[in-house]
């Protein structure tokens, strides 16, 4: 098993030709309309009608292209696994290519935990169609009915006669078989690769030997290096600059300005970095220079007096609260946080008179091309994008500001340029997880039934900070969810599990508060609400109640919920990206402080493709969720971030991780999302366990600044 990077379609065709004709099957990975793949020989493989390729060379080598950007979700392994499964390929003979941006692909992006759910059936069809044709070719050769032949391990077998031919030997003949309109897919009980844990990341060897895989590793003869000084305060714009000292420094080629940027261009990264410090720049105020102190006041003011947009309204909330036996209120707040992937933003651009070459790490290569086409008024078909491996994304690389900067700079200096952001640039230049404050209110009747529920979210550039159709919507007769938005010069964007990365904590902590007030077990309280929603649903319900019940019950069982004496347990469950994850956190007290000892996670993401990879995603999601809930925050003074690198912006480290136990519900449902859904429930499970252990609610992130972590008893 090998993976190959840095290829173009041309290379791919060349390679197919070298490997000697064989079967090249073009199929549409993504478009549900294109269910019937079309076969063409390697000679015409460049035909633009086809979107992606599975090829079998005459020597038996199987090549599968992986179109989506790889940022750690291991799509480069799991996509080909699905094709290989249906093909009955010998996994050891499969080669994988990371594709460049190509119009042949649909949804060639990484985001929304959507790749496997989106492509599942098409990938299976692609493999199954090729298998059908290989079997048909063998049957014709042997003059036996195809129904008597089977495929396994890259061979077609005829058991009655004991005949056997390899895929490579059959490829040529198979390519002439008419493409079937429909093919039978495997029964999941016969899966050999899917759902197993034996398949490892196909890029492991390159990663552990330091091969150039990432955007920052891309070098080209004659390219120049650049860094940009951007305003350090949100709300400021460039007034004037003097780059004369910088320009006189060794290795510096030019200092140029565009928009609010002053760019230093030179012959090496270090020379550019040093010269940038010598720029003399004057900025002037364009918008308000906001501080965290202002935001804290704003949150309180807007919570009571803001112009709210109603997101969902069921029944009569006012009456429910008027008639309530008990009303519970809880407010929760989170700060801005940075994505801060390990690989800082960077991009290579070469704007030539005849077109643009782009190389780098982006989650949305198509969007990069479209935006650069618009910026430079160069048609999209003159722009190529080579997708490198991404050193983390977490949503930051959905945005292509860095790619646009590189392209604009290259067009100004008329040279191939690699634009490099420092970690400080990365952390101070925005696109943060928005800061949000929530107020929850619940009305209970005399028997402890939830009769009314209100949620107001106030966000700073958050858009809609609620998920109004999520639980407990549908289970409460009288419900009002609304939100207030403050527009700020501080820029925000999608951060892994957007909105729900904090909303889930707040909601699940509040539901715990309500359960406590109602005198009910937190798990049973949720199950009762779900049973109610199932029996008499209120309004629109977008989540699958049975699947949510399933993960709740399973995590309760796996974690020994309610049976443990030596730990304090907290529970949480959340639905996002069409999947369901329930978690229980075990907290113990050490030296008077709560410590998370273990987290149990049960995920229902439908059919798991790679059990090994799926478990890794869940564990990473939990560590990410725990780390940011516990430690991370960006605060602001006069529009400038107070934290700008890992010395002041705290990320979770090895000694702070709890033990994690992962389980998956095996229900045979087609795959739903997994890259994000394990993250949202973690904060709630931990906060609820901390309450169990200490009697104190943590309401704000980062938890580490809450009183419970300051009090040494």
């Amino acid at each position: 098993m090998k993976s190959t990077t840095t290829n173009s379609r041309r290379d791919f065709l060349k390679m197919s030709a070298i490997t000697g004709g064989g079967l090249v099957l073009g199929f549409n990975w993504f478009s549900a309309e294109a269910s019937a793949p079309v076969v063409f020989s390697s000679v015409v493989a460049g035909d633009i009608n086809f979107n992606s390729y599975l090829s079998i060379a005459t020597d038996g080598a199987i090549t599968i292209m992986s179109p989506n950007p790889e940022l750690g979700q291991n799509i480069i392994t799991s996509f080909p696994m699905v094709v290989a499964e249906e093909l009955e390929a010998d996994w050891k003979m499969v080669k994988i290519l990371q594709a460049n941006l190509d119009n042949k692909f649909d949804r060639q992006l990484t985001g929304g935990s959507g790749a496997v759910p989106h492509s599942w059936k098409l990938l299976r069809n692609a493999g199954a169609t090729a298998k059908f044709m290989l079997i048909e070719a063998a049957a014709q050769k042997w003059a036996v009915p195809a129904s008597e032949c089977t495929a396994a391990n890259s061979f077609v077998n005829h058991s009655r006669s004991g005949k056997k031919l390899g895929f490579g030997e059959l490829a040529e003949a198979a390519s002439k078989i008419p493409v079937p309109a429909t093919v039978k897919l495997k029964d999941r009980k016969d899966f050999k690769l899917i759902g197993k844990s034996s398949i490892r990341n196909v890029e492991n060897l390159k990663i552990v030997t330091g091969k150039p895989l990432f955007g920052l590793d891309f070098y080209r003869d004659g390219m120049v290096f650049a860094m940009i000084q951007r305003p350090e305060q949100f709300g400021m714009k460039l007034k004037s600059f003097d780059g004369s000292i910088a320009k006189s420094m060794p290795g510096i080629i030019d200092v140029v300005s565009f928009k609010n940027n002053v760019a230093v261009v030179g012959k090496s990264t270090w020379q550019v970095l040093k010269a940038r410090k010598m720029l003399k720049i004057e900025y002037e105020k364009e918008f308000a220079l906001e501080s965290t102190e202002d935001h804290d006041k704003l949150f309180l003011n807007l919570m009571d007096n803001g112009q709210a947009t109603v997101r969902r309204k069921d029944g009569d909330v006012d009456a429910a609260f008027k008639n309530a036996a008990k009303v519970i209120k809880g407010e929760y707040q989170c700060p801005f946080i940075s994505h801060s992937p390990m690989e800082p933003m960077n991009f290579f651009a070469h704007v030539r008179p005849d077109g643009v070459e782009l190389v780098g790490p982006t989650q949305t290569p198509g969007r990069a091309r479209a935006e650069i086409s618009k910026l430079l008024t160069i048609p999209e078909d003159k722009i190529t994008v080579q997708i490198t491996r991404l050193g983390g994304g977490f949503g930051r690389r959905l945005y292509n500001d860095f790619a646009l900067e590189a392209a604009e700079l290259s067009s100004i200096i008329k040279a191939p340029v690699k634009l490099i952001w420092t970690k400080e640039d990365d952390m101070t230049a925005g696109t943060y997880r928005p800061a949000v404050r929530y107020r929850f209110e619940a009305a209970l009747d005399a028997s402890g039934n939830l009769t009314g529920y209100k949620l107001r979210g106030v966000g700073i550039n958050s858009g809609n900070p609620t998920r109004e159709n999520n639980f407990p919507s549908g289970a409460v007769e009288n419900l009002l969810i609304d939100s207030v938005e403050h527009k700020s010069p501080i820029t925000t964007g999608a951060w892994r599990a957007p909105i729900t990365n904090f909303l889930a904590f707040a909601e699940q902590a509040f539901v715990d508060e309500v359960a406590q007030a109602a005198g009910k077990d937190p798990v049973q309280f949720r199950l009762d609400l779900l049973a109610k929603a199932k029996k008499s649903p209120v309004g629109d319900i977008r989540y699958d109640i049975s699947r949510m019940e399933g993960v709740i019950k399973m995590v309760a069982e796996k974690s020994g919920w309610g049976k443990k004496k030596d730990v304090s347990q907290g529970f949480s469950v959340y639905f996002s990206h069409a999947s369901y994850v329930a978690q229980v956190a075990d907290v113990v007290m050490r030296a008077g402080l709560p410590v998370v000892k273990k987290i149990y996670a049960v995920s229902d993401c439908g059919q798991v493709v790679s059990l090994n990879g799926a478990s890794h995603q869940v564990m990473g999601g939990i560590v990410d969720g725990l780390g940011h809930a516990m430690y991370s925050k960006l605060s602001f003074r006069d529009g400038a971030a107070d934290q700008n690198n890992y010395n002041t912006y705290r990320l979770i480290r090895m000694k702070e991780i709890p033990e994690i136990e992962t389980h998956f519900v095996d229900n045979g449902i087609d795959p739903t999302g997994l890259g994000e859904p394990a993250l949202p429930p973690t904060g709630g499970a931990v906060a609820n366990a901390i309450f169990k252990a200490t009697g104190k609610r943590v309401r704000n992130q980062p938890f580490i600044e809450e009183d419970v972590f300051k009090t040494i008893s």
Partner: protein
Amino acid sequence: MAIYKLQVNGKTLQADVEADTPLLWVLRDHLGLVGTKYGCGIAQCGACTVHVNGSATRSCVYPVSAIGNSQVITIEGLSEKGDHPLQKAWDEIDVAQCGYCQAGQIMTAAALLKQNPKPSMDEIEVTMNGNICRCGAYHRIREAVKLASTKI
């Protein structure tokens, strides 16, 4: 600018750079050894870890002028065929997610195992705590170091 002769991965390589240029950027920009990663630039994350005379060193803050005749080993030189017990363990445990920090993790662990071939889990954690993995692959990093320690 001056010419520096460096002992890297058993070879003598030279670069014409300024005296304060960090080893990281000499390796990456001038010697074509890009396995050593730029993460934070202030010795906080460990992505740039290399061995200088066998000790794990943050190359992002180590000026080229301080190297002299020291032996520098980067991830590319850790083993000839990518078969150091740590590299094999990293594959077997399937450690990487995005993979960007892993060269630094492996180099940190390799220096540890050289000094202490049978570290306890606690000793592994203390050493590896200096390396950030933003994907949160810490469980498998820990497990892979432990596994490699049984093969050395």
